[in-house]
């Protein structure tokens, strides 16, 4: 049985490949979505089955999000907000290539949210991060009980 179930939303497929391969080898089950619209459909249908969500904040807006933006920053932020509304406690790892202070601040203030510059993490480091997040989550769950 897989260690956990992860949803990855990122349109940069070539970058994602090594990470996906690493997750697979580390026994994680993942779903990889490259389109905003499809990703959200999947999320809404399966949110309760997810343990971790990985989101690139720079995404093409798709048709459901009417944000017209040069940078695509709004897309990620809006996606995040929708995700949070549906799953308030789902751990979300946010990847970004931009280091805008305001954007960073938004995610740094969030609970159950981890922000990483895309170039900082190597595939195995991502796996380590996920393991730590899950361990933490489990610890909290047992505390709640």
């Amino acid at each position, binding site marked *: 049985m897989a260690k956990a179930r992860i949803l990855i939303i990122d*349109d*940069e*497929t*070539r*970058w994602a*490949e*090594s*990470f996906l*391969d*690493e997750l697979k*080898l580390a026994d994680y089950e993942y779903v990889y979505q*490259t*389109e905003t619209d499809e990703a959200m459909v999947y999320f809404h249908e399966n949110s309760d089955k997810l343990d971790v969500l990985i989101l690139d904040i*720079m*995404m*093409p*807006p798709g048709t459901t999000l009417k944000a*017209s933006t*040069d*940078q*695509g920053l709004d897309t990620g932020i809006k996606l995040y907000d929708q995700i949070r509304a549906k799953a308030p406690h789902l751990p979300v790892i946010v990847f970004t*290539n931009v280091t805008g202070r305001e954007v960073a601040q938004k995610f740094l203030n969030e609970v159950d949210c981890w922000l990483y510059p*895309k*170039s900082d993490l*190597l*595939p*195995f480091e991502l796996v380590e991060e996920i393991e730590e997040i899950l361990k933490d989550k489990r610890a909290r769950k047992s505390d709640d009980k």
Partner: protein
Amino acid sequence: MSVEVIKRDSIEIFNALSEIPFRYPDRNQALRRITELGKEALGSHACTLSFANLEKRFITVEACSGFDEQFEKHISGRIINMGSLEKGDMVDYALIARGELVEQYELHYRAQGVANPRTAEKYGLQSVLAHPMRSDGSLIGYFGHFSSRPDRFTDGEKRLLETFAHHAVAIIERFEHYRTLHRSASIIHQLSHDVLSMTTDEVLRQISKYAGQLLNVPICLVWRLDEPQNKLRIVATEGPIDNSFKQLELSLNEPGIAQHVARKRPSYLTNVSAGHQRYRDSAKAAAQGWVSLLSAPMHVGEQIIGMIDVYTTRQRRFREWERELFGTFANQAATSIQRAELVKNSALLNVLLQNRQQQEQQVLLPKIQEAIDRVDTESRERVSVESELEETLRLIAEQCKIHTRAQTCFLRLKDMATNQFELKVCYHEDPLVKQLPLGHRIEIGQGVSGFVAKTGTAYIYPDTSNGEHASQVAPELKLASILCVPIKTGNVVIGTISVGSDQARAFDQNHLHLLESVTDKISAVIMRAKLVRTVLQLAEATNNSASLRILLDQIASFACELMFQPVCLVWLLDKNRQGFVIKGKRIPNDQSVDINSLFISTAGEEVQRFLQTGKSLYLKDTRKASKHPYVEVLQGLDWKSMLAMPLVFKDQVMGIIEVYSYEKENFTVWHQRLFETLAVQSSMAIENLTSRQRSQTLNQVMQEMAKVRDEKELLTLLLVRSLKLVGSKRGWVSQLNLQTGELNFVSSEGEPLNTRPLKIGTGITGRALEDGTPLRVDDVTTDKNYEKFWEDTRSELAIPILIQNAKIMRKKSIDFAPKPIGVLNIESPTLAAFSKADEESLSLLASYAALCIEELESNRKLTELTQMETAIVGKRDWDDIIEQLLNGITVTLGYEFVNVSLVVPELSRIKSKYVTGIGPDKVKEFLTLADYSLDSKHIQAAIVRSKEAEVPDEEDKLLRKCNLPNLIRVLIPMTVTPDEPVMGTVEAGYVMGCRKHIYEQDVQILKRIVDYTVRALQQRNRGMLKRIKHEFGLAITGIRSNASFLQKRHAELSHQLIDLKFEDILTDCEILKWQVNELQHILGVSFTTSKRKKTTVFRDVVIKTVKQLRPIVIGQGFNPEKVEYSDWDVHRIKVYVDRGRLSQVVFNLLSNSIKYSEKDRSLFTIRISVEETRDNYIIVFKDWGIGIKKGFEEKIFEDGFRAPEAINKRVAGSGLGLTIARAAVREMGGDLKLVGNYRPTTFHLVLPKSLKEQPHGEGQDTYH
């Protein structure tokens, strides 16, 4: 002090007392000596001598001897009121009136007898003993003895004081006697002397005057015996005497009188009102307030000739010696009268009289001058000219009265408005005598003054009790005779001066001549005052007049009043008619003259001469003046003589002022001077008003100008308003073309002969601009430079429109210099039509217009600049941006030469990259030679180092070489902030012609353009760099994660997967390589290229790149098989190319196709084929992606262009790809073209077949 001691010393003291009348001529000294001796005799602390006036109840301390000077000063001359001790008054009247001894103690707190207790205390006065002094039984005063001791006074002291007081009175009386004697001697001597130079009447008046002085009595009557009738009549009086009393007669037949006269010695009555058998008129005398009488008959030998009476207004007992003295005087007077009568008709008298008249004149005239001067020197404190004049006239009247021996003198002045004579001054020696009120008016012909005013000749009215004017002399004035003399200016009577006497026949021809001799002086005083008043009125009128016309009418009125004339005309110059028209006037209502049609042409020689003299023109008889410009009009009028004067201000004739008189030959030289003064003042007033109005107008015009937004409209407005301002109807305005140096016609008023442009420096206009100063030509026919714009123009005013102090740049600092803009030309058919004031006003307007134009120009430039900025924003290409910059600098800012040099940091040099404004044959040379080390002294290098704009003053040798000597230029560093490195320099300039400077404002605008350009370039680079950084980031992240994954997991992985990972890494490396190309492009760094190699292009470049892109195709979820090509094409193209660079072109084209693929993955197809023309191989790239919108076909090749789709699809990229790709292909001699927009999007990569040949040597190693 013992009585014995007093007795021993007293003899000496009393001796000393008796010497006083002979040793002390001065009364005060005499009285003081008495107190001094009293103090000594009585051993007093202080002694005082006081005289009492019981009627008015006061005591005067006439003398004092005390223990110190301060006390004496304090007490002497003090007046102490008498009252009741009980009521707290210092001196008890009841006590004094009774003439009792005063004995008082404890003065320091009761303070009787002295001013107040403090004084007593201060000076140590403890007690006082005062003894009354009586003369002929009447109390005259007190002798006071003050003690510093509190003890009561002894009887001995009281007796000694009594003795001393008696002695003191005797000494005082003796002193008075002696003095009166002395006085009478001098009076009698004077009287005998007077007789030689006086008429009998004067002698009589003199006698009455002396008689009063002799005994200090106020009233004196001199009676003369009328022998045939044996009656005494009053012939002279002194003091206020009722006229009715003067009519009294005494008959020698009356027993009392006869008895009195026969006694030959004076008689007296102590109280006339008490009634006396010898005194008949006691009731009348009492009614006059007279009390005591002393009367002496006048005898010459045995012959009685008259009688002298003196009256007191207080009871007085004339002493024996006074009576004797008076008798002597009466006899001396009798002798004088007789002698006067004897010489009356002799020839000697006339000589003497003349002599005396001269003497009088010699005395009176300086006196009058003194009066005038006195008022002059004091006049600063006076409030008005009127009061100053009245004060002068009052002083003159006083002198005239004195010297004509009159009782009164009065002066009337003519009021021009009513023609009445108004009483200005009335001087009477006795203020109690009733006078006419000041301001009292009479008509011409009314009364004595009116009569004199009418006839214009002096008149003596010897006896007011009869004659034609008898009823017109106010009886209350008590004037028995009057002398009235007219005061004239020219022939016009402007006033009268009269002297009056209560004696009949008091005046004769001598008095008349005397008065006449001073009337000129009086007239001058009046006229001078009038002139001053007129000047003040003019000033006031100038400030208050709402319009010039009102002022001119006022000037006419003032002139009439000043000159005492009925008519005044004020003419003003009409610049469009070459002559003068009447603009202000004063003409009596009863005269109907049509003056509107009158015109004085400036053309006439006579008029010209008159205008040039600057002096008044006097026509004695206008109707005979044939050359008078409107003599025919004058024929019908009684304007008989005329004064005319040009109105000139600062050498500029503005008009003419004329006054007319109804009399012929009515003006004197003095009048002319007066009128000239008035004209000068009027000119100033007119100028003041016009300049005030002018400045208001100027202000309005400037406000109007400030609102205009168009240069031509502004210049036209300047012209129109200027013409109105100077009253002309023709003119034109021109604007300087800085490039050609020509003055281009902008607009005109009136119809000029031509509108051709003028060269700067030619014509009056061109010269004005070249010199930068206005040119006013009074007569253009005498000016060689005049260029004819109107056939009959005579005078011209050319005003340069320039900014006097425009900011310019000299080296690195700001300086000032004129900036020419154009010229305003005003012309007129009249000679010398324009004044200095016109010139100044228009210069002001023109310079304001210049400022407005500069502002408009600056606004225009800024607007164009903004448009240019917008254009720059749209430009992605470096060249395009620079092209916009060059265009802006030349077209908008009007520079003729521009050179943009860029810094090459890796070489530490600055090189010219773009240049305009030099001959095409020189461009290449310039670009090659304009290459300087940043460490050199060249200005370009200096600008990069200093980062400051500069206008160099030295010539650039290279520019001279390029046929651009004499170029003035500015260099601007290409940097926005001082912290940033300088990108390069912009050098802009023009040939020094009309523009001799670089204007600071233009430098500011230039800086702004350069800044904007620099910012645009930086912005563009920043945007691209940001995108390149993103691409870099992705590639590096990919390489890193793949490398890390391989390192960690390679043991667990299949060979196939490992291959894939390496493939990915290599693709990312290819991407990085491409990005480096882009960076090089942005930085302007040269590309390193390898040698061209013979290449089978499709196999070695296209297929190889397709393989490299495989991971991307797969990564995007596309089928790599859908990148299609035909094997047949693989070997078709074999050419010499730079394989590396061509690979990058293909890489770019294919990666675009992948990036811009449709979302529907099934549509993904890329088809690559080869076509061939005669000269070229064409590699055709087709894809079924989102395509390129119409209108963007060429834009996609522009530097930094990113299609909206790219932005929406969030496709990364700098926007440089196709730019670089096309440049690379073109460099090889081929081309890259878009031939289809959509489905398929088709690019043609064209390679010329010439590349099949091996190239000779290397190609260019750089491109831009």
